[in-house]
């Protein structure tokens, strides 16, 4: 690997350096746009005591849910969880610490982490359990609470296409939290469906500039659908 070529050849290499008790920020919404192979690699690796930052925690046998049976996750910041039984059991028993975070606040905390903004004010959560222990403040007669930025030791991201320099393009709503996650990792690892040569992606159409990306790997994806809803043709 020389210059700006971010491509690595194995998932093991992609997550080299991920250790117990680290913080991992993950892209994805539900099962859409999740870095499914990177998650599977964390399971294989057996890393424990992780703090995970992700909008959701997958389902029983897919996505971040696969890290639950071996208690690899110690703490999770998410906006919506409990799509699986083991999650609920661990949360109720206190084995898993869950910090429920409003979805927009979660997205903004990741963005702030990547953007060198240590904290920001938001009306979201004012007067609710989310505000507990947080500074409250009025601006122009409206109430806000102070929310702090999040950064991770690792960020794991799923994109559609990338060039070797790590410039990323996302596809449809699989974009979701991935661009913010990419900015907030000390080491950002991205898996994609296709890797092209630098220069093949139009500069105006790149969603995430390669400067945020440390490692890049091509994967194959199951892309499981959570709620298959159709209309008759």
């Amino acid at each position: 690997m020389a210059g700006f070529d971010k491509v690595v050849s194995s998932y093991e290499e992609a997550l080299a350096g991920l250790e117990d008790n680290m913080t991992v920020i993950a892209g994805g919404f539900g099962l859409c746009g999740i870095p499914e192979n990177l998650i599977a690699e964390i399971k294989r690796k057996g890393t424990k005591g992780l703090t995970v930052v992700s909008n959701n925690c997958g389902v029983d046998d897919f996505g971040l849910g696969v890290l639950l049976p071996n208690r690899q996750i110690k703490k999770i910041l998410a906006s919506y969880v409990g799509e699986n039984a083991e999650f609920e059991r661990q949360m109720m028993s206190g084995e898993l610490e869950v910090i429920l975070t409003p979805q927009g606040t979660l997205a903004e905390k990741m963005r702030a982490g990547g953007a060198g903004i240590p904290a920001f004010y938001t009306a979201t959560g004012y007067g609710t359990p989310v505000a507990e222990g947080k500074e409250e403040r009025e601006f122009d007669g409206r109430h806000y609470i102070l929310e702090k930025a999040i950064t991770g030791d690792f960020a794991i991201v799923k994109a559609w296409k990338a060039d070797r320099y790590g410039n990323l393009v996302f596809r449809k709503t699989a974009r979701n939290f991935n661009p913010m996650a990419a900015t907030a990792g000390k080491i950002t690892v991205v898996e994609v469906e296709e890797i092209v040569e630098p220069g093949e992606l139009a500069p105006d159409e790149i969603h995430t500039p390669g400067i945020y990306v440390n490692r890049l790997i091509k994967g194959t994806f199951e892309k499981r659908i959570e709620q298959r809803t159709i209309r008759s043709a």
Partner: protein
Amino acid sequence: MALSREQIAQRVAQELQDGFYVNLGIGIPTLVANYVPDGMEVMLQSENGLLGMGQFPTEDEIDADLINAGKQTVTTAKGASIFDSAESFAMIRGGHVDLTVLGAFEVDVQGNIASYMIPGKLIKGMGGAMDLVAGAENIIVTMTHASKHGESKLLSQCTLPLTGKGCINKVLTDLAFIEIKDNRFHLVERAPGVSVEEIKALTAGELVIPENVPEMTFI
């Protein structure tokens, strides 16, 4: 008679205006999309990063990369745009969405809303609901007026953990259309065949009843 889920959605749809950007929550709010008046265009915002949500896909169109905030497979409508979650909530928090419709467990006379958690029972999280109620200036809450056991959901003070404080001013239940101001509920319309007395009996918070309370009309 109490409104059906469809009728609640239908009545909410009367609040739409041409050119509105609208966020519809899961459940009854989703049904509102079925009752957009003819000749009127609205665009649906889905907080996972889609403005211009279309109908459900056919079997052939189904795409794992294109879902709505309820995680259902969807399509894009003409003129749709897709963006990341930070941008989506910038849009919501910044007050750019014209109307938000969402369900609730309880509302109270101060405009508080509880909709995301029943301690010890339902702890799945608030998703985008706290951002939606904090960001929108125009919110309609849809819910049944009372629980199955006849307990009012329109209270003097919410008993469940709040989703938002002082942010609700319109509630559409199966019995009535109610506005919230000056720390009181105000009865605006009643469901066809439902008496003011029935509504009063099932409203725990202070209810202001004007002389004339028209029945809702449906076309």
